[in-house]
């Protein structure tokens, strides 16, 4: 089996339009969640979200491109540009033929769906733009990334709700590890902050009206975010041979299915994914210094996740740090694991653990070191990123310092 390393990272999210901006915000414990700005916001009960602000699509893409790119595709391309540029890779010949792109998304082109449903149902129009289908399809982002960077190998989209990005990166990891591809571009993207997207989440009664406060006893639900995270996964020898700067090693992963409930999480399912990732990477539980939690800020997730971590790590659960950066950037649904992997890389590379902000009251059912409110300096060698989706589909990735 080959070793797999990360040689490029890119993002756009509510905390920043680049990786350095996002790291800075995470170090400062800044909150990217605010009042939603969108059409018909007065008809929403939930009026907050982690929107990407100060973003002008027409400075990144031309008119022809914008006719084809839903906002989730735009985010994926912006993040991919930053990641590929950092890697220093150019794809041609045999490298291009074998390298591909696997991205996660849950909703795909939701903005396009929302606008066009409004147009035909609400406004009674009988004609839609010819590119509605290629714009809204879930694989649009992956396909446009493949086109922009000449990635001609295995490429597809993974949709497992809130675990989409982690499942996607797990697939990319397997492809590089098995020797199938020398390089895979991977991560995820989501832009569900449109009227219909927020309205649908409102219906489930799990959204907070004021803030995302994971693990805090007074938490009252999740807050939606948007954006993308994209990474370059590269075979270790390939990366070292060209003198690439290695950000981290992808050491292990595991996936599991609760097979129990469509929305309620299971401690056993989560614990099996966490312990599976350790076993896959031959990682001693005591080596794990930091976990980027799924940490949605709902009563159901946070209790279950803490119990799963306590089960897997035993006494070491009291020593390791676990934080939820969703408190800052919101829940990016299908893109969330990708943006959260940045907190893992920051922990390994910069020795800074991103905090769980908005933390106000200790909860005895979440009695772990959740790095409340302020980032912390710490030297960690192995970190995990948890993702536990609706539908009971779980994926956990382990990264190691190189």
């Amino acid at each position: 089996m080959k070793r797999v390393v990360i040689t490029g990272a890119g993002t756009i999210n509510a905390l920043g339009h680049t990786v350095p901006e996002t790291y800075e915000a995470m170090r400062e414990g800044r909150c990217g969640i605010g009042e939603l700005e969108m059409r018909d916001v007065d008809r929403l009960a939930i009026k907050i979200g982690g929107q990407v602000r100060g973003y002008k699509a027409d400075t990144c893409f031309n008119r022809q491109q914008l006719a084809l790119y839903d906002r989730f595709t735009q985010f994926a391309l912006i993040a991919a540009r930053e990641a590929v540029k950092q890697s220093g890779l150019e794809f041609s010949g045999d490298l291009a033929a074998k390298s591909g792109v696997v991205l996660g998304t849950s909703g795909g082109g939701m903005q396009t769906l929302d606008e066009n449903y409004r147009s035909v149902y609400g406004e009674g129009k009988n004609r839609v733009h010819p590119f509605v289908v290629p714009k809204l399809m879930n694989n649009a982002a992956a396909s446009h990334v493949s086109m922009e960077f000449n990635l001609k190998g295995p490429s597809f989209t993974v949709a497992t709700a809130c675990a989409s990005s982690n499942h996607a990166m797990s697939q990319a990891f397997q492809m590089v590890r098995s020797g199938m591809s020398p390089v895979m571009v991977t991560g995820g993207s989501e832009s569900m902050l449109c009227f219909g997207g927020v309205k649908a989440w409102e219906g489930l009664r799990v959204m907070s009206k004021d803030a995302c406060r994971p693990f805090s006893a007074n938490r009252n639900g999740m807050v939606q975010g948007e954006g993308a995270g994209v990474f370059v996964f590269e075979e270790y020898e390939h990366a070292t041979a060209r003198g690439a700067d290695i950000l981290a090693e992808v050491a292990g992963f595991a996936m599991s299915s609760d097979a129990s409930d469509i929305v309620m999480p299971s401690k056993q399912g989560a614990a099996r994914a966490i312990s599976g990732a350790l076993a896959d990477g031959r990682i001693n539980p005591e080596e794990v210094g930091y976990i980027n939690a799924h940490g949605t800020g709902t009563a159901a997730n946070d209790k279950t996740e803490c119990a799963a971590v306590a089960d897997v790590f035993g006494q070491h659960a009291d020593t390791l740090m676990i934080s939820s950066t969703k408190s800052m950037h919101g829940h990016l649904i299908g893109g969330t694991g990708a943006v959260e992997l940045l907190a893992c890389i920051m922990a390994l590379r910069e020795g800074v653990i991103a905090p769980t902000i908005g933390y106000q009251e200790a909860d005895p059912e979440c009695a772990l070191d959740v790095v409340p409110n302020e980032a912390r300096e710490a030297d960690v060698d192995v970190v995990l990123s948890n993702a536990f989706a609706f539908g009971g589909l779980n994926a956990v990735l382990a990264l190691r310092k190189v």
Partner: protein
Amino acid sequence: MNVKDKVIEIIAEQAVLDPSDVTMDSTLESLGIDSLGLVESIFSIEEAFDISVPFNANEPTQSEFDISSVASIIAGIETLKAQQS
């Protein structure tokens, strides 16, 4: 149909029971209604009475809307109807 009968009909349908099996002191738990069933019942109540029920599934017991029994749910709807009419 009065508020009481309509609420009992909604809850009985959710619990897959005959309305005669739902009493004023029944709790949702005793009727076998889980958290998803509760959210669905509240949606049905909002639709039936054209009201907006303040309810967050993350803190069901802290809501101003008391869901501890069928009687408390009916009382809550009466209050909301009066406030929101």
